[in-house]
């Protein structure tokens, strides 16, 4: 962005005072993340013109792939609002997230009661959609092979399917990118989603995986800092403030958080925005 172009690179460490990071600190924190969670790795810019000179060429941004997302956000909201009435219904298996909203920085009122009544119907529809999720954009009918293309292959692994609904077996998946935002001087999360049929999600579909509170405000679609592509991103304008508050909470409980742990904490806090994406942040850090 233009504003970013004219913002000088932050030189002095100020993360404890204001929650911001210098590019060097971003690299330190990134190295630590890669070390502790090797599913993350550093990545390069897509072409030389996008290399940002204040970061090492081979450490332009961080990426992790194939993070599962089993249900849409509204389904999670559905669990919550109906919890007392439908205790016996096994609507959702993953309850872990709901219980984790400690810390005071997660809005809990996004469990909107109004949406409850129409949800059952919507869920049913969605499953049907999933089942015939192969509607072809181009006419490929004459390509469908009913055998003959290959010999039978007894050694091909096929997952045992004892679950009737498609959604459980075939989650959406996400690639997460963490870039450095020079203007806000904080890490910035970008998301690339894939549907149950391994196709890239449209931006609108991606919105289904953001908590309602954030979908229209905190999530924007912007050009990636290192790639020639627009992607949904968690807008970083509040990041420094949030990180500062979390660092203070830590300090109050007598723990000192090093700058290298910044990204582990950052991932825990962005989880509030993307609650259904099952990034295993618990392994990364305990609050």
């Amino acid at each position, binding site marked *: 962005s233009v504003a970013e172009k004219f913002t000088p690179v932050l030189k002095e460490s100020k993360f404890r005072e204001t929650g911001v990071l210098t590019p060097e600190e971003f690299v330190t924190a990134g190295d630590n993340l890669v070390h502790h969670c090797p599913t993350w790795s550093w990545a390069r810019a897509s072409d030389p013109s996008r290399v940002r000179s204040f970061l090492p060429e081979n450490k332009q941004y961080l990426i992790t792939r*194939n993070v599962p997302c089993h249900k849409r956000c509204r389904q999670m909201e559905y669990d919550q609002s109906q919890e007392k009435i439908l205790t016996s219904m096994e609507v959702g298996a993953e309850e872990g997230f709901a219980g984790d909203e400690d810390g005071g920085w997660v809005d809990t009122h996004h469990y909107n009661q109004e949406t409850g009544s129409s949800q059952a119907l919507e869920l049913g529809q969605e499953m049907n959609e999933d089942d015939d999720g*192969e509607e072809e954009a181009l006419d490929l009918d004459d390509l469908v*092979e009913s055998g003959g293309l290959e010999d039978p292959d007894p050694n091909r*692994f096929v997952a045992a399917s004892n679950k009737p609904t498609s959604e459980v077996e075939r989650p959406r998946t996400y690639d997460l990118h963490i870039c450095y935002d020079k203007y806000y001087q904080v890490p910035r999360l970008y998301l690339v989603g894939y549907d149950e*049929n391994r196709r890239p999600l*449209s*931006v609108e579909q991606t919105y289904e995986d953001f908590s309602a509170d954030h979908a229209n405000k905190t999530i924007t679609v912007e050009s990636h800092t290192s790639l020639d*592509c*627009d992607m949904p991103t968690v807008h970083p304008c509040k990041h420094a403030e949030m990180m500062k508050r979390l660092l203070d909470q830590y300090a109050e409980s007598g723990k000192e958080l090093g700058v290298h742990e910044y990204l582990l904490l950052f991932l825990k806090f962005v989880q509030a925005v993307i609650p259904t994406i099952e990034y295993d942040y618990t392994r990364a850090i305990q609050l």
Partner: protein
Amino acid sequence: MPAAFVPFATFCDTTFWNEVNKKKLNEWMLDETPKDIYAGFSIYDTVGAECRISLSYESLGEHSSSSYKGQLSLWNTLEAFKKLDRTSMIKIYGRKIWNSIKSGEWLNDVRTLFYFSFTAFADLKKFKYVYWSCYPAICYPPDIEHNSLVLDDPKPLLDYHFSTGEVVFILAGDSCGKLSRLSEFSSSDQVSLVIADPSPVESTCGWPVRNLLAAISVYRPDWSTVQLISLRGSSKCFSHIFSWRQVETPAECPAVVGWERNVQGKLQPYSVDLSTQFDPKKLMEQSV
């Protein structure tokens, strides 16, 4: 237990298609000759029942230690894409791999065993794409059986893999070494092969192991068993013992399988519509 192998599944992100758009418009134009392409894999996946292959902006340029080399065939018309004789194509790929096995090339360049093909048609006006990958696997040796044991400490193996970038290597005693040193061992119980395995399914090996077993059984016709360690980053590592029925090495390439199946298990191409991401008109509408 008869052996099973976890097949590949291709994930193309928008940056990959964006790169295809640019190259097709500015560089390749109507040129349909196959291009080199690199597909990323990860040994940290624990999700799903396929070995995930990622195609991104990097696939048309750089390659890393965690990628396989293949070939991109991008056709100018949907007709050409549809008309492809995929039965003949997979036989040709199979022969290429079989030649690497017979000549011993695989011992020096093991990635020749993991060669893949990505066929596609890109409609650059409507931003619709059709594609179909083939990960050829030679169905050989016959009657593969398999047993596995948990491996206690894979750390030294992971260290070796990451420091050398080798995707297949050997382990003898406590020391790791290059695959080409396989010739130093006369008996299959003196040595284990270690493969960086993209399979997310615990105790089941990934697709690339198939061609490796084919290669070993041809290279050592006197062996009918091999120890193979499936190296994973996030889950338990297993040491597998594969055994097979010894037969005389066929002169011609045996049966080959590997056209990718969709999530319903059907042999069918994928199609994707990225007009909401790429179409300038639609982007204008969105931003209003």
